[in-house]
């Protein structure tokens, strides 16, 4: 009888560990779905932005070409989460440079279309930032579970590997104020 109880308790612990790992893995995937959705929103905005500013921005042609190239890379099917995270960092920086450059063109700053795009981009940036933070928390919980004892043993048995987080810039960590970043 005692042996039966011990086996039942051990089985219960194993089931709980297995389920908790699966739940954490699914949470990461689920939130990455949300990240993907907002990133897509930003990619959709890029052609408009490039079209509106390219006539004026003669000296920044290379930044504009770069952002267009990065966008087409990001839209390729079959990208891994890691590649998506890397592209996101590059696009964030390229868009930031475009917005800073807009400041040097008074015509652009006053252009209603550009102002509207800036506004939309600022809004999307804040959604992306929220999605990145949610994803990072889910990944941290997941990574903790696969590295900590005793769930690490179950994780290696299930061949679960560590996942990467988005690197959030120091400025963003302090205050998600894209208004300042874009100087709008």
């Amino acid at each position, binding site marked *: 009888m005692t042996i039966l109880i011990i086996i039942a308790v051990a089985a219960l612990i194993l089931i709980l560990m297995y389920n908790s790992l699966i739940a954490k893995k699914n949470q990461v995937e689920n939130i990455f779905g949300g990240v993907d959705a907002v990133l897509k929103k930003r990619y959709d905005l890029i052609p408009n932005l490039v079209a509106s500013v390219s006539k004026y921005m003669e000296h920044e042609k290379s930044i504009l070409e770069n952002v267009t190239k990065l966008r087409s890379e990001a839209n390729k099917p079959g990208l891994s989460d890691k590649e998506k995270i890397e592209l996101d960092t590059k696009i964030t920086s390229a868009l930031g440079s475009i917005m800073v450059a807009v400041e040097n063109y008074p015509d652009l700053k006053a252009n209603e279309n550009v102002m509207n795009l800036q506004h939309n981009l600022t809004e999307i940036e804040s959604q992306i930032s*929220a999605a990145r933070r949610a994803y990072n928390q889910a990944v941290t919980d997941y990574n903790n579970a696969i590295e900590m004892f005793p769930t690490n043993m179950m994780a290696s048995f299930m061949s679960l590997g560590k996942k990467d987080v988005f690197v959030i810039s120091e400025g963003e960590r302090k205050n998600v104020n894209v208004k300042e970043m874009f100087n709008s």
Partner: protein
Amino acid sequence: MKSIGHLTDFYYNTLYPTLQELEEQRRALKDKIIKFGILLAVAGLLIFYFLTDGFKSIDTDMIIFFIFALGASGAFLYKILIKDYASSFKTKIIEPLIHEIDDNLRYDPVYKIEERIFIDSKLFTDKIDRYSGNDYVTGKIDSVDITFSDVHAEQKHEDSKGRTTWSTIFKGLFIVTSFNKYFSNSTIILPDSAENLFGSVIGSWLQSKNLARNQLVKMDDPAFEKEFVVYGSDQIEARYILTHSMMKRILDLKKKTGKPVYISFVNGQMNLAIEYDKDLFEPSVFRSLLEYQVAMEYVKTLQLTVAIIEELKLNERLWSKR
């Protein structure tokens, strides 16, 4: 936004003649209350004397019952006596103060935030059996809709002997404002009692097992995490609302009030509950209205309530709602 200094000056300078008039009324009322108190105590003692056959047959139950009865009649009498004074204090002092903060604001000393709104805020999950409140203020400040009032929500308990007792679910200031971002889910921010009591590991485990709430949302600001626990139906949206700067502002607000703060983002609105252990904006009978501390208490509470708009930057139309 009017500063505390400006409002204190207004209290002393513009309201001075009214304050003096009320101060006389208060002194007379204080004497009256003391006289009634003595009378009540003497009458009580006499009744007690006759009931106990000249203090010969006293038992503990009787003493307890008597003290309770005396206390209850005293409180009842006090309420009746101060009724007129409290009402003129509110219309002559609190109302002008509120109008001085912003002309748009409307004040009603008797009305309160509706129980439905209080329940819909999802801040408190206990069943409410008695709901009261007063000092209702509504209007717009810097183009942000704001409504607040004093609120007291209680729950009824009955023991095996059929005796009824009441426990407080929430007592304090309840504020409803519009928010500058669109959201469709609910995010609830509560004081972190579990982590404070049981430490971060067990506390956080207990929080995640709270069946009355949605998913636990762990925030990436250790100072905020220490003070608050966040529940939400959408992990991303909760962080969209609670940016790093918003978390800092909420922490500052908690520091400024020094009271437990509850916040929810539900149905496109922000609900904020600040726990106070007393009725706000009620005149004190035993302290002079001209005393600085007394004046500051009214002014500070009002200013702080309204300053929440500024504190949380609710009027910043940078984001989605333009």
